[in-house]
């Protein structure tokens, strides 16, 4: 008898006894796409953490022995002590490539995070209050969304008299704000009429508490998915801004998008200067996209079995 009971209990546990998060994690671990994405992202984060230990030289250090060999038609390749040779300014390309991972991660994470925080704030206010607050906020959001994102980023970045890393981050972050705002507002609206909110309201929970404790946590799934995907587009957008001359003007800064943009004029002299940062960007963008897509699938309740 007991064995029957345990078996039934196990079966029930197996069917629905897991939270959506636990369930999503299990499905993520089974999904090869998620694993590939997570491995790429993990490696990227590890490299950026340990870059100062791995890189033999500083990002701005100019070496006379490299600089001496710089000619308009040739940039020295691998030399003893410089595994990938020189960049166009006589600096160690290998070190710069490694250290750039930090700056790229920095730009991507901050552009996404700032966009997320402001977007979530606007979306939550619009979704929680509804009425004219919602109408006004969403009208502005719609207008921002009606400008193609790169054009919007360009107009914001061009406002700065002297482009810097901060202006790039702000420009890309502002493009992300309306995306998060729309997303969160939709998720909040969907819950306003739902049973758990009704239950909380009839128990006398205050509106602020309902929004923060009951509605926001339930709306975070799509936001996390979007944030992962936005990391990829932010890095690509920052690279595009650099290419258009709106990137960081500091020549000492090593960032993949910036390195790729600056290497375009040396493409027939030494293509590696463009290729390595480009491959790094493509891999990282791919990693975040794969992870984001896998997360979307895993968090979709329709996928639960």
């Amino acid at each position, binding site marked *: 008898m007991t064995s029957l009971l345990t078996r039934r209990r196990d079966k029930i546990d197996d069917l629905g006894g897991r939270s959506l998060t636990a369930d999503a994690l299990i499905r993520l671990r089974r999904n090869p796409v998620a694993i590939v994405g997570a491995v790429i992202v993990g490696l990227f984060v590890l490299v950026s953490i340990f870059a100062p230990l791995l890189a033999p030289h500083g990002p701005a250090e100019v070496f006379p022995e490299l600089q001496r060999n710089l000619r308009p038609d040739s940039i020295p390749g691998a030399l003893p002590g410089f595994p990938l040779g020189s960049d166009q300014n006589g600096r160690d390309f290998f070190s710069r490539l490694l250290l750039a991972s930090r700056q790229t991660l920095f730009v991507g994470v901050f552009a996404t995070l700032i966009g997320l925080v402001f977007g979530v704030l606007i979306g939550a206010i619009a979704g929680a209050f509804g009425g004219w607050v919602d109408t006004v906020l969403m009208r502005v959001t719609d207008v921002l969304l009606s*400008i193609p994102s790169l054009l919007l980023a360009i107009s914001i970045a061009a406002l700065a*008299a002297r482009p810097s890393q901060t202006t790039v981050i702000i420009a890309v972050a502002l493009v992300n704000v309306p995306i998060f705002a729309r997303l969160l507002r939709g998720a909040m609206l969907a819950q306003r009429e739902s049973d758990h909110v009704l239950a909380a309201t009839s128990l006398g929970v205050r509106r602020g508490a309902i929004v923060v404790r009951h509605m926001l946590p339930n709306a975070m799934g799509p936001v996390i998915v979007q944030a992962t995907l936005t990391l990829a587009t932010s890095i690509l957008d920052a690279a595009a801004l650099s290419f258009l001359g709106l990137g960081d003007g500091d020549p000492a800064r090593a960032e993949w998008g910036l390195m790729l943009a600056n290497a375009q004029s040396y493409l027939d002299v030494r293509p590696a200067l463009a290729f390595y940062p*480009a491959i790094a960007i493509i891999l990282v963008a791919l990693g975040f996209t794969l992870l984001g897509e896998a997360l979307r699938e895993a968090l979709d309740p329709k996928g639960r079995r």
Partner: protein
Amino acid sequence: MLRFIVRRLIQVVPTLLLLSVLLFAWLRSLPGGPAAALLGDKATPEKIAELNTVLGLDQPIPVQYVKFLGRAITGDFGNSLITGEPVTTEIARALPATIELSVAALLIAVVLGIPLGYLAARYRGRPLDTTTIIGTLVGVAVPVFFLGYLLKQWFAVDLGWFPPSGRQAVDIEATHVTGFAVLDGLLTREFDASWDALTHLVLPAIALATIPLAVIVRITRASVLDVMGSDFVRTANSKGLAPGTVRQRHVLRNALLPVSTTIGLQTGLLLAGAVLTEKVFVWGGLGTLLAQAIERRDYPRLQAVVLLGALVYVLVNLLVDLSYAIIDPRVRVR
């Protein structure tokens, strides 16, 4: 139907008005104001004050806004700081080049994208499907300008199959009628000019097409899979319709609805992509105009091109909504 069109048109107006407010605010938030931007290196406090009076910038802000709006409606966005020409004239001259490039890119994306997405859905889980999905993911992850340089380096410089940059060979005798290089050649029967323009078009169009292509493939695939699992397809199959008939008349037709929306969205985004592609291939269209404006901080030109981009985007989306109402009668009711 007419009421639907009118209602959607009216909905566009507040969007455009808000956009104009934002643009006005943008212009006013320039470092030192528009006068300093116009004067550039020659800016002194006296000169700025003088120019502010000339430009009417010393008047109350609401008055300035109404004036700005009045000028914008009549198409007056000021003169370019680089050439001194009216920005509108510059844009009109550069427009055909960009339209030609965008149409070519869109054609590639649609003609390849829909069949590819459909085949991927039909052979779901097979190697063709997997390869297509990986291709689309990589396609979106590659920086557009880098892809442009790769194509240029491989197919123009190394292999010499296509010209590396520009819209037309310098030594070719071409009469300009419409400004669309390929079309002009056909109209004037200068077929060699048309052919030459076409070879110039191939590489930039491919570079510009990658992202819309990847997006269209993915949406088509998802949409076809969605429709294939629906009840009416099961009904059609179980009442014994030939599989080919089901696929053509039931699956493909219904699956193309979301795809048409995507095509519209991507059309609006092409101008943004063109900024990067045109810079790589020295194309001489709107993108080149914008890239120059950024380098030289030519604010009037920058503003006008961005506004045009937003306007095109809004109008294209409006057209998509309208076409949706024609294809799918259910939309009209709502």
